[in-house]
């Protein structure tokens, strides 16, 4: 009992609040972008960015914080930690998130995906040295990555307003609430390791390792985009709707009709 008492979420009230927000996102307005064509999507994305001035402000704050804190640490980290080790760390953190993926596979009713996630976790945690090597992928068990934002989407809950979150970056009311719900299943959210500072070190390492993956790419986007904020918003919504795996049969049914766009007329 004493052992169970120790294993408790860091902020239980936050999860209840997050669930309320998910339900609220269905009431606040903003279309369900997944159900429309990309031509209409662009218009809808602008319409659901009701907090644009505030979001742009947070975006600038995030760039400032990233440039002065996260990016210097990440640059130093990427300089001393070789790429294969960073990839291994990425695999380790992905493996650690398996309970989150499994819970969402099940909540979406994707039993086959849930089976693969379980097999991946068992293979990678043992043969894959605690997940540092993604052996399961090589053995034909590809990642079934998903989150509670997507789960809520499959339940028909729309995105709600677009949000630029401090430190977390682009999101929507639904997906932001999902971050907190996913934390219920995230082992790093529980006091399961003693001393607790090990958890903080792991959490910090995960942030820096993830940022290292995008080192150079984020800067390149800022340099080459005419409006970086609008680009990040577009990338966010496109990435939330993309197909998961490379395919020989492209999904062409949701392509916009471009016949009306013609400069030669």
């Amino acid at each position, binding site marked *: 009992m004493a052992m169970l008492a120790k294993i408790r979420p860091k902020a239980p009230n936050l999860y209840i609040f997050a669930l309320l927000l998910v339900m609220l996102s269905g009431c606040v307005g903003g279309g369900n972008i997944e159900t429309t064509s990309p031509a209409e999507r662009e218009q809808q994305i602008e319409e659901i960015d009701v907090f644009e001035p505030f979001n742009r402000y947070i975006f600038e704050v995030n760039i400032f914080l990233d440039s002065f804190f996260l990016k210097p640490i990440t640059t130093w980290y990427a300089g001393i930690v070789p790429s294969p080790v960073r*990839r291994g760390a990425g695999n380790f953190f992905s493996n650690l998130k398996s309970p989150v993926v499994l819970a969402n596979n099940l909540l979406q009713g994707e039993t086959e995906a849930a089976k693969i996630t379980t097999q991946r976790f068992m293979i990678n945690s043992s043969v894959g040295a605690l997940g540092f090597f993604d052996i399961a992928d090589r053995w034909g068990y590809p990642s079934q990555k998903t989150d509670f934002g997507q789960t809520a989407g499959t339940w028909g809950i729309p995105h709600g307003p677009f949000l630029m979150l401090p430190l977390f970056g682009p999101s929507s009311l639904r997906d932001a609430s999902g971050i907190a719900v996913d934390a219920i299943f995230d082992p790093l959210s529980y006091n399961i390791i003693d001393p607790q500072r090990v958890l903080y070190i792991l959490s910090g390492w995960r942030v820096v390792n993830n940022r290292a993956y995008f080192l150079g790419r984020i800067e390149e986007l800022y340099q*080459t985009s005419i*409006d970086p904020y609008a680009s990040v918003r577009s990338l966010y919504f496109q990435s939330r709707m993309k197909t998961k795996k490379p395919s020989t049969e492209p999904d062409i049914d949701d392509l916009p009709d471009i016949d009306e766009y013609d400069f030669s007329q």
Partner: protein
Amino acid sequence: MRYTHAMKRKLRAGVFLVAAVVFGLVVTQTRAENAIAERYVEGLIATAVEILSDTNISDEHRQTAFQNFLADNVDMRRLPAFLLGQYARTPTDEQKADYLNLLQEFMTRIYLVRLQQYADDAITVTGSRDRKNGREVVVTGTIQLPNRAQPLSLDWWLLQQEQDDGTFDFHVFDVRVAGIWLAQEQRSGFVSVIRNNQGSFDALLQHLRKQIDSQASAHAQ
């Protein structure tokens, strides 16, 4: 004239045969078009890699070669209008001419920066699918990045255009990298700039000029 049962059966068989031949011809033609589209993309990749990774040419030469490559292969009829979204009909002829020139230079500079880092990565064409009777073909492929176990998906959306001599050529309308359509991302920025400047098209031209200048000065350093 009265049709006997045997005649009706022969007529039905004849109609079925003609329909099967026509269907077969359409399918064969579509497959041939798709194969041409796939070969076209393979050619594009080879040329782009040659331009981006040639160590014997100067940066200036590379930029000119890349600009010509884009001018020959990117659809400049529909893409520039698509990038403007709901503002596609707002520019005057003069603004339109300015916009087309600036857009070509803007695309050359940004895609030269964006694509250079992928010049050494293995790109493979894996298939294709057409729509609108083959007037549009999406060619699929993959790119294997060195820091990833699995390849990323890479798709090319091609449009068939009639040339002055009556023949049809493919042009690239958009490219999708790992599920992200690049033209749609650019469109988001263009539309946002015009909208946030009370619908002013000149604001977009100004932003394009600024972006080109900033890329030029970064390149010069």
